[in-house]
């Protein structure tokens, strides 16, 4: 297929102004989800309302179950998934935490539940704004986690999530991290493809011989003693190692069919070609970061930005290849990890571990900012870029700095 044909195909469908949550709902409609369970919490509740409206308008035929809390909400979807239903679920902040037991068992049972996590600060204090710690709380459990930048990516990532989650080599739940307010509640123009294109990308959900059904008598989730648990965990570990390859395949198909998705599925490089130092982060903070890069580039600075899309699986080899080109990397964490090795953020801590074996390591500095939904401005990005530049020049700078905090 030529690029022109791809462009044409990408143009098929309609263009609409939508919030991130409405965009997720559109993907849920085109994925023809069978069951969804809901329990309101801001900012997740935007998608819950959008899906309800689709059903009410007759645009989506799905069971819509209002649970009495997030634990039941996620259990309902887990069980529906086990009996062969494509499911959609989601939550935010402490709601996501209230579902924690269910969140832990879902990847163990290898059920491809797709969830939207409207990222929200964990209580206390009660706050609505974005922080990434809610979704990151499941990072070790087998949830595949990605973060999006805008409403179009909300739509695209949701379709990708079903494709990756339901692949029999994977069969893991996928969580889509959507920054509260900045993406969930702001509208941008998005392209919505027609059903035929989506069907070409996303095959029907088929659990095969794992389907829980009277005609296929199996028992799932038995109690097991120490003679069995390690083997079960090892199976999960093997599957986790297969996810990256499946994401790459899905990305290639996505790009072929829809004509979008960037050079690779795992990260986006922005004006990095001759960069000497870059900022690095996930989610909507890329927007002020990109403004900063353009401004400083105009002033002759060799600065760039790298946005990580998939946090789990962590694209270690790719990060080593990309980030070791730079003299310094400033990691912007919209999260915290108290008491961690360098008292920095989660992303910073993971990235440091990923780069440990690299032959040439860039200097890493960490910025904690935008917590509780505080805005990260281009000016703050300028400040972080300056510190990173000084680190690249070998100056003595703090390893971790909090940005935009009143003293």
């Amino acid at each position, binding site marked *: 297929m030529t690029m022109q044909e791809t462009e044409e195909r990408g143009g098929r469908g309609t263009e609409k102004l939508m919030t991130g949550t409405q965009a997720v709902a559109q993907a849920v409609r085109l994925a023809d989800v069978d069951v969804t369970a809901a329990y309101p919490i801001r900012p997740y509740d935007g998608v819950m309302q959008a899906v309800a409206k689709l059903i009410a308008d007759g645009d989506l035929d799905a069971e819509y179950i209002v649970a009495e809390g997030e634990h039941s909400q996620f259990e309902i979807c887990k069980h529906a998934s086990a009996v062969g239903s494509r499911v959609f679920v989601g939550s935010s902040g402490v709601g996501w935490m209230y579902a924690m037991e269910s969140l832990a068992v879902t990847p163990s049972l*290898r059920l491809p539940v797709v969830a939207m996590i409207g990222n929200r600060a964990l209580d206390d204090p009660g706050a609505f704004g974005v922080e990434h710690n809610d979704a990151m709380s499941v990072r070790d459990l087998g949830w595949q986690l990605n973060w999006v930048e805008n409403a179009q990516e909300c739509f695209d990532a949701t379709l990708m999530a079903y494709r990756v989650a339901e692949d029999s080599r994977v069969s893991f739940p996928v969580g889509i991290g959507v920054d509260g307010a900045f993406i969930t509640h702001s509208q941008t123009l998005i392209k919505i493809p027609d059903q035929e294109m989506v069907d070409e990308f996303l095959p029907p959900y088929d659990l095969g011989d794992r389907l829980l059904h009277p005609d296929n008598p199996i028992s799932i989730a038995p109690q097991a*003693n120490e003679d069995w648990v390690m083997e079960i965990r090892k*199976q999960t570990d093997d599957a986790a190692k297969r996810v990256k390859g499946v994401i790459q395949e899905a990305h290639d198909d996505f790009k072929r069919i829809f004509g979008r998705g960037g050079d690779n599925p795992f990260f986006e490089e922005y004006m990095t070609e001759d960069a000497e130092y870059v900022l690095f982060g996930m989610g909507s903070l890329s927007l002020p970061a990109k403004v900063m890069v353009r401004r400083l580039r105009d002033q002759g600075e060799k600065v760039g930005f790298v946005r990580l899309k998939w946090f789990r699986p962590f694209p270690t080899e790719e990060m080593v290849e990309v980030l070791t080109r730079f003299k310094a990397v400033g990691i912007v964490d919209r999260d915290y990890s108290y008491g961690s090795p360098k008292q920095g953020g989660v992303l910073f801590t993971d990235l440091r571990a990923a780069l440990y074996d690299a032959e040439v390591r860039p200097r890493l500095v960490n910025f904690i900012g935008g917590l509780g939904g505080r805005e990260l401005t281009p000016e703050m990005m300028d400040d972080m870029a300056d510190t990173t530049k000084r680190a690249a020049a070998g100056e003595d700078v703090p390893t971790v700095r909090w940005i935009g905090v009143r003293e």
Partner: protein
Amino acid sequence: MTTGREAGDALPADQDTQQGHTSTEVREEAKSVEFTYRGIFQKTLAANLCKHVVMAARKREWLGSTIQRYSDSPERNGIPAKQFAVIAPDTETLEGHMAKYEPNELDVITCLDDTMADGIESWAWYGRQPINVRLRRGGTLLVISNRSKEELLRIIPQKPWDWTLAILPGTPSLAGLWVYRDDGTDMRVLGAIASSRPDIFEMSEIEAVIRDDDALGDDYIAALKSGHDEVVVHEIKAGEGAEDTYEPVKLPGYKEMREAIIVPAVKVGEKNPNYRTSSDRTMRPVVNFDTCIKCRQCWIDCPDECFDITDEELHPINYNYCTGCGICAQVCPVEDCIVMVNDLEFVEEGDKDMFPLYKEDRDSYQEWREEKIEKGRIQHHDYFNADTWAWAGSGQAENTPDRNDRTARNS
């Protein structure tokens, strides 16, 4: 269940050494004592015994630790369970035996209820293991029983090496949960261990422990001495005892297992071969098919779905899955239609279904049934059945006139 071994192996490699010395020959080696007991009735008893083993070892400056086997469910009525005491001359030796589920080799195994003398399951996994599966060469199996050596050896599996069988005359102390019990069983067992295995502790050592405890008086010393004097020790030769049919389960590798924690379900009408739980049983129901009125109450109330339904609508029992809980006998409305009988009366029958005998020859069946009841009938106390909202107890209750009068019973 079993640890300290490679997946698929029955026993740790060091237990396969038949040439090794016995622990009685080596005084400074760590020693392990097992108490196989019935939860919940004997849980405190077993803990008490383990504590005293360790405290007796302290009298000769040894150290000790006790281990409750973690996979057991000792809070459940009648479920076989184990607790261990390990004693060692120094910290380093002791630590080599800690952070384990159970010792690899046992110097002494004490069976507190002789209905478990053939062996028990661990939490129903992998079938029944011989009671003496981990008994060392030259080890001692101590059983509380009024049965003879010959009777017990009909059910206790043989070993490939010599061992000793110590029998302490008595009945299993099952009542009262051992919270306020003072029937002397603990002291008698300790006396029996001191007598048969002084290398674990000597009489003077355990006696000193009892005398240190202000709560224990002369009665306890008397019980200790009676256990010491009454225990009878028999030398058992390699190959003597019941045939050992135990086959360890071959555990699959993770590449052989189905993914996503899936196991085949039991199909309708089938029973799970991995969940035979008959070692839970101290008594078993015996049915009079001639007086059965086919009301199905037993079939309905059996918590383990042991009752089948025949073409004649009678209800034979699958004893592989019968835990001997006695609910069937209690809910049965016909007097003496289902009678609970001591399980040790059925060494010959094992878990065999006796209904074919009834079908073949009713008189022989009745003769068999009456003989069993005559020898081993268990008298049952009645109880309030929360499922049926009635005072149950059938004809076996001690007194029955007002058994459906809840007010009277609750007072």
